[in-house]
């Protein structure tokens, strides 16, 4: 009787989850599995033939593809900068907003506005600023520190990308921090004030520890997104000049869709990136969850 019931229950479960499972398996799981398979072939995306070459792609990536590793390094560099900058900025903004008496809503609304607009559009707007407006300011108002090739010069284009990424992404993280800060019980603050604590001491001893869980989440989000950055760089510099700002997502995209259309090879690369991201975010989550518990 119980056995029959269990089978019936399982069938019902499957029936309910079937639609979701079908689309999800078709669009995510099967491609992921195919990805594994393709990475072991030399498929060029067009030819129906997909010759199996085992781990040859991976050998090639590890021995001769310096562009790939360069782009990975560049992505690392970008990730570190953006994770640190975005989280600090978002936290400061959140704290700043929460410390105000009035206008909190207005600020919050304004600060999140850039996030609502696709980064592609935002990048084009910034492109206008970098290629026209800043030069105008430099030429007309004599602000020569602005007179740089923000998109063409490898040194400066990095900062240009960071600026746009911060502009378009901080709002989201900031909102999470605001919610976390709002979740700190008032009583703790009141008690601390009675004890004569300065705002800074309160910040350090009460607020920060109490929002520790949000650090974990925000760090995870920013880390994950930073590694896969594509839109900003693609529209702002296209990875250029040359390959100076080529992040790994663009490297893979070009390998597959431009150049020699080496789909198999490109998939192998994306698997490596996936593995790296997985390892890093797992470490990040484990470490921080442990620290959270300690706090």
């Amino acid at each position, binding site marked *: 009787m119980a056995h029959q019931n269990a089978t019936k229950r399982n069938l019902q479960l499957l029936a309910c989850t079937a639609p979701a499972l079908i689309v999800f398996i078709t669009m995510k799981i099967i491609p992921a599995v195919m990805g594994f398979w393709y990475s072991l072939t*030399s498929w*060029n*995306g*067009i*030819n*129906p033939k997909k*010759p199996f070459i085992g781990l040859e792609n991976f050998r090639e990536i590890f021995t001769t593809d310096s562009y790939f590793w360069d782009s990975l390094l560049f992505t690392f560099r970008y990730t570190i900068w953006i994770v640190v900058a975005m989280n600090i900025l978002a936290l400061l903004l959140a704290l700043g907003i929460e410390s105000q008496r009035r206008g909190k809503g207005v600020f919050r609304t304004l600060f999140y506005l850039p996030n609502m607009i696709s980064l592609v559009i935002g990048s084009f707007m910034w492109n206008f600023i*970098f*290629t026209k407006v800043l*030069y105008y300011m430099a030429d007309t108002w004599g602000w020569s520190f602005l007179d740089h*090739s*923000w*998109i*063409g*010069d*490898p040194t400066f284009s990095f900062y240009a990308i960071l600026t746009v990424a911060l502009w378009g992404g901080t709002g989201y993280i900031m909102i999470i921090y605001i919610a976390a800060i709002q979740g700190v019980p008032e009583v703790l603050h009141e008690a601390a004030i009675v004890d004569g604590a300065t705002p800074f001491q309160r910040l350090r001893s009460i607020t920060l520890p109490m929002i520790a869980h949000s650090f974990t989440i925000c760090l995870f989000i920013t880390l994950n997104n930073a590694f896969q950055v594509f839109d900003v760089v693609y529209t702002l510099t*296209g990875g*250029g*000049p*040359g*390959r*100076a700002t080529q992040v790994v997502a663009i490297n893979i995209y*070009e390998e597959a*869709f*431009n*150049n*020699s*259309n*080496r789909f198999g090879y490109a998939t192998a690369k994306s698997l490596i990136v996936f593995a790296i991201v997985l390892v890093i975010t797992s470490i990040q989550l484990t470490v921080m969850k442990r620290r959270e518990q300690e706090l």
Partner: protein
Amino acid sequence: MKKEKTMKKITTVLVMLCISMMLLSGAGTKEQASPAKKVTLNVMMSFPRFTEEMEAYVAQFEAKMLEEKGIEVEVELEMPSSDQYRNILQTRLSSNDAPDLFTLHATADLPTYVEAGYVADLSSQPLAAKLYPDVRTSVSVDEKVYAVPFESTVWGYLYNKDIFEACGITAPDTLDEMKEVVRVLKQNGYTPFQLAFQEQWVPQLMTALLLGGKVSGEIPDWVDRMYADQGSYREVADIFEMINLVMSNGTPRAMETGSEQGAADFANGKAAMYIQGTWSAESILSVNPEIRIGVGALPVNNNEDCTRVNLATTTSLAVYADTPQKEMAMEFANYILDDEDSSALYESLKFNPVASCHDFDQYDWAKDASRYVAEGRAYMDLVLPQAVTNEQGKLLQSLYVKQVTVDQFITIMDQTFKAANKALAQ
């Protein structure tokens, strides 16, 4: 309570929207499954910048078919962006989902496609007889015509005739003469070269022209040897002299200037020369209709034989060999070179005349370029792997911002070519 109401409203609206969308799209598809005597042609083309003109021409075709043959034709025009065009086309050809007609790059792709059996023989069609001899060769394989040429261009670099005349100079034939031209221009306060390196295909035009000239003038078997992993960019290293000359005497902020911006600046007289193809003439003229454009062959070194213009038939229309709509597809192909309407089309697209049915006058610059061809100073566009040309463009950008040296350029290009060969072999 209010919140719930708002939620309900939002959900209802979304659901309504979705349902109406489904109905609308359903309605749309129903219409197409209409009665007989209606033919649908799928045409895929790779110049989205001419979407408007082509749509207009297609409408004319549909009208003509209806009037003359009483057949209702619907031409579905697809214009993917050019970077992915080849992938899409090849995917569709290999999955039996091919369009009835499609454009391809005559010089580069025709031999492969003919061999694979994808394109139909057009030699017996009226259009074939109308083609100019040179042009006919460029769209033929084994003397048979396989595509209708659209863009047949002769190009080198563009120069501003007014500026040249004001300085009393003419288009140079050797590297030394070009250096003199540069000197004179600067003396008179003009910037010699318009630089627009934001999009890597523009600087790549330099390598295309220089390699073409050098190879056809001095090392005709270089390309074949490169494909056999037996050549090196070191053999053509003198192209870097001209590249250096151009990069050191050009407009500032090149990395921020896209091809259109470059065309606009050139039109406004910001520089005397612009290394761009004649296809750019349309944009240039739209900014400044008064400008007098000349075409020159870019010198490579002091060997005049290497100073040539590029002769290329690029975008051409082919008929899919196994199309179920063979008759109508052929009609369409023939219509491209229609006695009455073709001239207007080619003129609006600012293409060169390719057949006897074209009676519009060549633009001045086109005549300039043709002069080189008449003198035997042209070369057929070199066919290099796409990965190689992409890399050339990127490296030129890097060279400009001084991130690579000429030596590194050569080494990297050799490696890239070998890698491309390897990919082709797989």
